[in-house]
Every structure is written in structure tokens, then in C-alpha cells.
């Protein structure tokens, strides 16, 4: 099973990024091998629709779980269409969140915010 988390940098010390769509990287954690990989979020420079594109990125990585502090409605629509479950991150630490998830301590993200659309509107 692959878990995706939005993160601020591609280093081991990185914290969780407060934005899903415009997170610079995604950390993909493989539960069987316990290996982590960093993926560039190509959506970060998008003029609009970043959440939709970021969702596409984690779908294409084969993630089945997303742990994130927040998620917009368009992104959530794509993510749930792909059958990915969204959990709310409990702290800023990647390791703590993965541990909490495996212990069944994370809750499903209920609050899907309306898009922060028109960031780079014309």
C-alpha cells in the first residue's frame, strides 16, 4: 500500500506542507518495503486547477491513501473518484503521521474546503 503526503522539501527532515495542490513535493511511503520516495508536484506552477493536477500526480503514483492537513473540493473529487482515501494529518511530522495511520489513529478528512480558485486568474 502506498501513502502519499504533501511535503515542504525533498529531504528527510521535511514537514507536512499545509497546501495539498501547491505542495512542492509528495512523499510516497510504501508500507510493505517501508521505503519513501519524493515526487515533484508538477502542479505547483499551475495558473489554476492545481488541486486537480496534484490529485492526478498522486493517482499516477499508485497511492491508495492520502494524509493531508487540507484538501480542496476539486482535488477531493478526483482523489475519491480514484478510490483514494483521505485522512487528516495529526501533526507536522511525516514519521508521526505514518505511525499514527498504521496504528489506526488518524481520522478521515471530513472538511473539504471550497477551492481557493483564481489564484493566478487573468
Amino acid at each position, binding site marked *: 500500500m502506498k501513502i502519499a503526503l504533501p511535503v515542504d522539501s525533498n529531504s528527510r527532515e521535511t514537514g507536512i506542507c499545509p497546501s495539498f495542490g501547491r505542495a512542492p513535493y509528495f512523499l510516497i511511503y510504501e508500507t510493505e518495503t517501508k521505503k519513501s520516495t519524493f515526487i515533484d508536484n508538477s502542479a505547483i506552477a499551475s495558473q489554476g*486547477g492545481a488541486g*486537480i*493536477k496534484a490529485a*492526478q500526480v498522486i*493517482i499516477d503514483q499508485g497511492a491508495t491513501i492520502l494524509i493531508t492537513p487540507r484538501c480542496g473540493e476539486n482535488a477531493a473529487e478526483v482523489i475519491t*473518484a480514484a478510490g483514494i482515501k483521505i485522512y487528516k494529518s495529526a501533526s507536522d511530522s511525516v514519521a508521526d503521521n505514518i505511525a499514527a495511520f498504521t496504528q489506526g489513529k488518524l481520522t478521515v478528512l471530513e472538511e473539504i474546503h471550497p477551492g481557493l480558485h483564481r489564484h493566478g486568474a487573468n
Partner: protein
Amino acid sequence: MGPTKMKIAVLSGKGGTGKTFIAVNLAAAAQNATYLDCDIEEPNGHLFFKPANLQSEKVTVGIPFVAEKLCTGCRQCVEFCRFNALAYANNKLLIFDEVCHSCGGCILFCPEQALTEKAKVIGEVQRGISENVTVLTGMLNTGEPSGVPIIKKLLEKTATDDGLAVIDCPPGSACVVMESIRDADYCLLVAEPTLFGLHNLQMVWELVRLFEKPYGVVLNKCLDGDNPAEEFCREKQLKVLAKIAFDADLGRLNSNGIIAFRANQKYQKQFAQLLQAITREVQHETAVNP
């Protein structure tokens, strides 16, 4: 002076400067005019004109529609769309109508012809009559990404009209403003006597020069004392066609939705003179730059 066929665009770098006030009164001052409210996100010229015999027409844009049986999941459309209006999840193409900018690229690129265009209403154009003025109002539905198609429709509707057309532009200098001034014969820049007003004047001044439009300035809400916008006009030799004084009576007329030209002799005279001055400028321009 007889009716001259010309299109005047009234613009400013920010809202609340007096574009609608100037545009409405200029149209009222002509023998026969069309007033176009291109401030499609919040058109308010109709509040002054209260046009009768309203007719409205919906404005639509084309957005993609997928025939799921034909889609093979190649994702060329997803990769093409720079607005990220498409995604592919669980063997299904998802289309986000409100993110789509109607460029039509996805439909062109689809190798399976699985995407076709469907019409989506984004707003409407209203047409009505107020004495000597035909009033055209563009209205964009909330949440739509771009009002340019509505402005195109408004301008299309005036193409055949004779007489004066006054284009009340949206504030700022973005795409919707560019579309509004594209066919204008003359641009009228409205400015307030503040530093912020000066900044906004510079923005639209840059725009009209970029479009190589003849232009003039109206200094609105003038008070005694410093007027940074006026100083700028003097320094850069921008032609000032009118100075309108800050006037509580005028504020009262405006806030009651009364057209100053039709209700007050002082403004009747001032706007008749402004219209004459613009007409002279346009005729001069046509003679110098045919």
C-alpha cells in the same frame, strides 16, 4: 454638431473613479447613442438608464463533453489543458466545467474524437431603450473564469448601430479591458485626484499606448489643492478634456440613480462640451491618421 459615428471607451485603473458616471452622461448627451456596459461582473449603468422594452439573450461558451465509450484513456487532453480542467481517474475522464477556459484544445487533440463541444451559459446580454440611448448590458454569472465572450457579444451587437457608442469598461487593465477597447476610436481615461488615482491612471495610460489608441483624460472629483493626476498629465503632456469638481449635489444625484445630464443644467452643459471636445479629437485623429 450632427451625429458622428464613433466608439468611445471609458476606462480607469480601479473601480469607483467615475467611469459609469462619465459614460452614462456622455451617452445621454448625444442625439443618438448606444451605451455598452462592459463591466460585466457588476454592471450598474442600467440603474441610471432604467431601460424599457428589455430583451435578453444568453451568452454561451463551448466546453468539452466526453463520450465515455470512445475514450481510451490516452490522456492527451489531460496533459494538454494548461488550466487542469481535466483529470483521469479510475478509467474515467473527469471534466471540471468551471475550471475550463473554453479554448477547445482538448477537443482538437483527442485522437478518438471522444470529446465534443457542448454549450454552457456563462451570462447574458440585455438590450433596452432609455430615451435617446440604446442600453446594452453584459452580465457574467458568478464564478465564471472570463467575461470576454460577453464583451465580444456586446461589441458585435453595436457593430451595425449608427451614432455614438460609449463603452463603459471594467476597471483595471486586464483581458476584459483589452477586449473592451479593441475597436474603440478613442479612449477616455478617468482619474481621481489622489496618489492611488495617479497609479491607476498610469496603468490605463500604458494600456492605451500599447494599443496605439488616441486618448484623453477626464479629471474627476477635483478638489482645491494638489492633484497628482493633473500634475502627471501636465508633465507627460496628456490632454485633459474635462475637469469635474467634487460636488455633494452630484453625489446625491448619482446615489439616487439620476442621470446628471438629464436633471441638471450645469452638467448638461459640461457633458455637451465634453462630447464636442471628444468629437473634435476623433475628427482630428481621422484627418491625421486615416
